[in-house]
């Protein structure tokens, strides 16, 4: 299945009146469109809260997330511990707050790796065509031959734990996404007149590709980034849940669920909050991505 090659969609529809659009007015127009989409706003708000929590974790946490207090283990929510405690008596709320750091730390690296590797690959494949295209895209197909979660598990198994392994394990599976999107846009743009014009002026291939054509990919890439963040957070927590992510006692949402799972009978509420946190964070990125896509390309609908 190939990604539809959409024409240039960088400018928001409301700001497309020719001649009047300064950058600032385009931004304002874009804000007007997106502010009407309440779900997208909600998504943006969730993301902001997540980022804020990750940055200011030490100020927000009510307890030391690593402090063990066996006497108060597996407590339910209460005044001392807002969301209760885990099997070692550590404060669930504080561990969730620090877990945001872990989640974002991994997601940022993994998403960056996917985008930084995928964008140039797709651009080169689309621009040079023929054999280069065939070789690059067969590579992408072979990455896609592994279901994403499985690829991450297999890579972690091979590379071992640690931050860099997690970046690679999670990032590799999203490389083809970026490559396909950028390739599609480049294919649709490279025969356009403005590209011809740039060539006539004597611009080099690289300048034409990165200076003239690639700016058209910004909108679809931003949309993909949002969904990719959701995907990265999900995979990180899945790997941690399987014991393949960070080692204990790291505060990671997936690891928290793994640690509580043998004690579900004693304190089912302890498993409720980490899962809800992961789901809300992923929902936030998905809603925001949906909103951005509607903003950039109102005709598109979700596969």
């Amino acid at each position, binding site marked *: 299945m190939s990604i539809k090659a959409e024409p240039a969609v960088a400018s928001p529809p409301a700001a497309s009146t020719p001649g009047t659009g300064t950058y600032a007015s385009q931004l304002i127009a874009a804000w007007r469109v997106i502010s009407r989409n309440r779900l997208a706003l909600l998504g943006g708000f969730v993301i902001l809260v997540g980022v804020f929590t990750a940055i200011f974790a030490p100020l927000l946490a009510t307890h030391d997330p690593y402090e063990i207090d066996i006497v108060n283990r597996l407590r339910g929510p209460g005044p001392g511990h807002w969301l209760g405690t885990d099997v070692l008596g550590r404060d669930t709320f504080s561990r969730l707050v620090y877990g945001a750091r872990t989640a974002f730390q991994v997601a940022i690296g993994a998403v960056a790796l996917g985008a930084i590797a995928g964008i140039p690959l797709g651009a080169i494949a689309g621009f040079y065509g023929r054999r280069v295209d065939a070789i690059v895209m067969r590579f992408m197909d072979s990455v896609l031959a592994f279901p994403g979660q499985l690829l991450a598990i*297999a890579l972690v198994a091979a590379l071992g734990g640690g931050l860099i392994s997690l970046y690679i394990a999670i990032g590799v599976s999203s490389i083809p996404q970026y490559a396909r999107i950028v390739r599609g846009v480049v294919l649709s743009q490279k025969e356009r007149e403005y590209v011809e014009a740039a060539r006539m002026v004597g611009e080099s291939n690289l300048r034409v590709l990165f200076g003239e054509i690639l700016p058209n990919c910004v909108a679809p890439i931003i949309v993909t980034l949002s969904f990719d963040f959701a995907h990265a957070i999900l995979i990180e927590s899945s790997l941690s849940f399987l014991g393949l992510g960070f080692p204990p006692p790291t505060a990671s949402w997936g690891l928290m669920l793994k640690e509580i799972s043998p004690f*579900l009978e004693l304190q089912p509420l302890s498993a409720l909050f980490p899962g809800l946190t992961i*789901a809300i964070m992923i929902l936030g990125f998905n809603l925001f991505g949906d909103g951005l896509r509607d903003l950039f390309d109102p005709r598109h609908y979700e596969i």
Partner: protein
Amino acid sequence: MIASYVVQRLFQLVPVLFLVSIGIFLIIQLIPGDPVMVMLGATPETSGNINRQQYEELRHQLGFDQPLPIRYLNWVSKVVRGDLGMSLKSRRPVLETLLERYPATIFLAITALIGAVIVAVPAGIIAAVRQNTWVDYLAMGFSLWGVAMPNFWLALMLIVLFSINLGWLPSIGYTSPLVQPVDFLRHAFMPAIVLGASTSAHLTRYLRAEMLEQLSQDYVRAARARGLPPLVVIVKHAAKNSLLAVVTVVGLQTARLLGGSAIVETIFSWPGVASLLLEGIYARDYPIVQGAVLILALTYVFINLVVDVAYKFLDPRVRLE
């Protein structure tokens, strides 16, 4: 026509399968440090205690005494002949173990898929027909939440509800559907819900969009104008034409089903190849890891082929790129 399409499609697969085989071969080669030591369970501190003879044997068995390209060729030629090596743990042929556990994975994936379709098809259709009513919002809410919810968490919540609180369903175990179908369903109920939830959510959403598109088409209006009952117009006209959407999504979702099965099978102690993969990882039994990844990737590639062919069959306009 269809036959030549299948042949073309198979040819396209050759380079992909070649690269996939390299990837799986590299799983062992990528292990940091000395892979043989790692597989023997030695850390750098304890490596002195390893039996020298045992070390050399394993090193030879895995072909580490030969250069990389030769090692790859040897490995591939064995794999093609069905020799996936021996499990380091159980000392049994990997292929034998894989074949033993493969049916459980497939039965679970099929059950999850059927469940997902049974929920999603009416949900998607009704949501579109009753657009912007509470039914629609409910279906869309379910769809957004189903995609966002991590499957391992859903699994834990279902276990708390159905196994711990109500005591209705077993949280572990498996019987073959070919032997005891009812018992199979009892065991597969929760794993199938967990595995199928996000597929069902995606399908609902996509089907709703597709139905809305179809319902606004002229042929639907014409059918209505002819005085056909609303149900006939919805089911026989619009829904029938949205079928292609179902096929597309099912194809795309196979990745999710097979990838998700690793976690689901592990949580519910489901004896499939995906949980075997994790057992292999935990035990550093790399031949098992390679075998399990291989069989899952091949399954995925094969299903995609079938979906593409089905697609071609349903919509003759599809052309090979």
